[in-house]
């Protein structure tokens, strides 16, 4: 069957790509607080479709994660249909296709330039690169070391979009609004655009530049070859490719006609070799060869007679050994260099609410960026080196990043709702309060009422627990000029503190705050030097 309902197959593929890209953008836009405590669900679906992410998280976390059932469906479909996901569904692949098409006049020439070099024997390590990455990621995961978030295409895409594209979009639109003044654009267009197309506010993220650079490189590689990322680098694609080796549905004939060979030239995945024929690991069922065959003999279907010969995997023996070495060596080296999560956890590394101990959290977290995207206050930030090399891009709370805004909202549980692996568990609000993210400690060398006898207690005002976790001692102080003043000096009742960080975020002094959140398991920082002993009862609040 070369057409379905008179529509050429490649158009079906294009329709599916566009539709799923729209779904992806829609889900991405929906990954935000919208007035309900519960998100509609499905925001993290892209990650849950990804068997590589699922396998890595389960291996590293040493547990079966039921959330990944959609990945199992994808595995089943791939065993039957082949690597269709990459051609028909993957949003990154779709964007790469659009980008390539947009720059066709340039890419056509540059691709031509690189073609002989990629075909040369010296390029063979490149062909094995994605298997190398796959092997490394899975081996490292088996050693409980998380690498998948650094190479998984969806993590790269979502982080790039959330950390860079979204804030840029908001700021660009906002600039236009300022320019357009109070005309019809302000009254008619603005509310619509703000409500439906833009994020609620421009977020700010650490590592935005790095996230953008990675995406830029992936897109720039289109200049070298079409779908360069998918052909040579993508480990998820590699996994789908391995599953597709003996897939039932294949391009037929699996050989390339000697007289013509157009389809081999046309193939965006370099899946057709004039000599060896079809490589099912590479073919993404884009259907171009079906529609462009001058004789009209190419079709996709079940291969019935004759044996299908899966092509050997392009990873050389040397490559396998290198992959094994890297998968074992990276976790080992990181631990040996005390850059992994074996080293003591920094006291101010505050993980999202409900996160398990640092080691478990790091091995389950796939760095997808969903929690940081959904966090309404922007307090969740990707770690740079705070959590060691193993923790790059993992989320943590930075209460002081955006003044007066960055705190974990007392009643919010969105991060747990979007986490695709359960690294941040889905908690009811009451349960969240029983899992404090940290505990606050005053710094008596900075806090105004303690260090300078200046009234303040803004932290107490903000403190969201029904019975304030920040309490106040009324003390009389003699100032330098001899004047006696009554001053309210705050202290923390750490049994009540939930570690939300609103005190730190709103502390009135600039720079380092006078009250700071610490991990629950961190030792007392010893900054409450002036408070001789913890008051058992608060005389002032009763």
């Amino acid at each position, binding site marked *: 069957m070369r057409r379905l309902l008179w529509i050429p197959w490649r158009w079906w593929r294009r329709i599916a790509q566009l539709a799923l890209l729209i779904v992806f953008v829609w889900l991405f836009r929906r990954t935000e*607080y*919208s*007035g*309900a405590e519960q998100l509609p669900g499905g925001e993290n679906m892209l990650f849950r479709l990804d068997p590589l992410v699922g396998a890595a998280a389960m291996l590293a976390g040493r547990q079966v994660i039921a959330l990944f059932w959609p990945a199992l469906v994808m595995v089943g479909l791939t065993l039957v249909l082949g690597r269709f996901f990459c051609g028909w569904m993957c949003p990154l692949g779709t964007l790469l296709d659009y980008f390539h098409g947009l720059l066709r006049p340039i890419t056509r020439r540059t691709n031509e330039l690189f073609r002989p070099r990629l075909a040369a024997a010296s390029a063979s390590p490149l062909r094995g690169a994605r298997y190398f990455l796959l092997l490394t990621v899975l081996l490292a995961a088996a050693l409980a070391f998380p690498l998948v978030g650094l190479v998984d295409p969806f993590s790269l895409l979502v982080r790039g979009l959330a950390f860079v594209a979204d804030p840029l979009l908001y700021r660009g639109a*906002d600039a236009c*609004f*300022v*320019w357009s*003044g109070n005309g019809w654009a302000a009254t008619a267009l603005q509310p619509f655009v703000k409500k439906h197309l833009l994020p*609620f*506010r421009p977020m700010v993220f650490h590592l935005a530049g790095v996230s953008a650079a990675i995406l830029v490189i992936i897109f720039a590689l289109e200049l070298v070859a079409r779908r360069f990322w998918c052909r040579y680098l993508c480990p998820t694609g590699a996994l789908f490719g391995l599953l597709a080796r003996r897939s039932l549905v294949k391009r037929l004939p699996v050989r390339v006609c000697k007289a013509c060979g157009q389809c081999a030239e046309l193939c965006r995945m370099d899946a057709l070799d004039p000599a060896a024929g079809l490589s099912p690991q590479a073919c993404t069922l884009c259907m171009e060869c079906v529609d462009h065959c001058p004789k009209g003999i190419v079709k996709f279907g079940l291969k019935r007679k004759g044996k299908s010969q899966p092509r050997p995997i392009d990873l050389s023996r040397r490559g396998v050994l290198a992959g094994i070495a890297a998968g074992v060596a990276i976790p080992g080296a990181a631990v040996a260099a005390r850059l992994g999560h074996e080293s003591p956890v920094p006291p101010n590394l505050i993980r999202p609410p409900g996160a398990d101990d640092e080691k478990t959290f790091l091995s389950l977290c796939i760095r997808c960026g969903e929690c940081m995207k959904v966090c*309404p*206050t922007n307090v969740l930030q990707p770690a740079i080196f705070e959590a060691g090399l193993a923790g790059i891009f993992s989320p943590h709370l930075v209460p002081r990043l955006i*003044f*007066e805004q960055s705190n974990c*909202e*007392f*009643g*919010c549980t969105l991060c747990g709702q979007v986490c695709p692996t359960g690294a941040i568990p889905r908690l009811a609000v009451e349960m969240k309060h029983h899992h404090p993210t940290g505990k606050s400690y005053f710094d008596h060398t900075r806090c*105004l009422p303690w260090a300078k006898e*200046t*009234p*303040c*207690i*803004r932290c*107490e*005002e*903000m*403190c*969201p*627990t*029904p*019975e*304030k976790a920040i309490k*106040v001692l009324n003390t009389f102080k003699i100032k330098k000029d001899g004047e006696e003043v009554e001053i*309210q000096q705050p202290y923390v009742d750490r049994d009540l503190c939930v570690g939300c960080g609103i005190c730190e975020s*709103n*502390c*009135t*002094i600039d720079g380092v705050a006078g009250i700071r959140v610490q991990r629950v398991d961190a030792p007392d920082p010893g900054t409450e030097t002036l408070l001789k002993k913890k008051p058992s009862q608060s005389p*002032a*609040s009763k």
Partner: protein
Amino acid sequence: MDRRAFLEQVAAWSAGACLATPVFNVRSILAAEGRAKGNPLLAVAKGKEYAALVDRALKPLGGMAAFVRNGDRVVVKPNIGWDRTVEQGANTNPDVVKAVVQRCLDAGAKQVLVFDRSVNDPRRCYANSGIQAAVESIGDARAQCVFQDQNKFIPVQIEKAKSLKEFLFYKDALATDCDCYINLPIAKHHKLSKLTIGMKNAMGVIGGNRGEIHKGIHQRIADLNLVIRPKLTIVDATRILLRNGPTGGSLDDVKILDTLIASADPVAADAYATTLFDMKPEELGSTVAAAKLGLGEMNLSKVKIVTA
């Protein structure tokens, strides 16, 4: 186009663009209206039916028509500061807000804006306070509960101020953009300023670092009220928060009073509301400071109190 022409045009367009970017500079502010002579009037009403309560509280003052004229741009400024529910008594009661907005519309307002600079995430506060839904339920395009636009905070010099000489204010709330500003606070406990009532509610229309206000809070709140001059203050004391304010959270700290206080005099309104907490008006530093600045009458014996 050659290179030179191109660069010239880029330069010209950029310069034009920079100059055309709106620069707000409201320096000397804003016809400070003189206070009416004589004793200010203050209405107190008590009742369970909050919409009717608004009418009763406004009646002795001459109804909403005494404040909102036909075609006015009105700002109704409730307290939507916290991610709390109605019962927790941390935000202005949505039924009261709705009734006030409706009266403004009835009086012929061209536009009624409801907003606040929330402390918690504004989306959560607007939703969970019930105020956004209440305003939307009116179903009139003239009345809108809007999120503040960060571009609209503009510097204002406060000439008569004793402590806060200049601060950022929300443009829509200033007399340049708003014909009638109605302050709709809730009366609550607040450890530092003792209570937060009407005048501290101006914290919701200022920009920048609000922590600055906390350094010498009483005088600075009074200074803010030199700029934000509500024509009408309605104190929501249907529920008051006795402890653990201004955030609250526990129903044990909430006292149901079913009371509204309305006055054109912001200082008198705060002074009277203070008494609901068994405190004297002079115990509130901001009231004293505001009275000294001539913003209103804090001596309740000089206020004509009408129980409506």
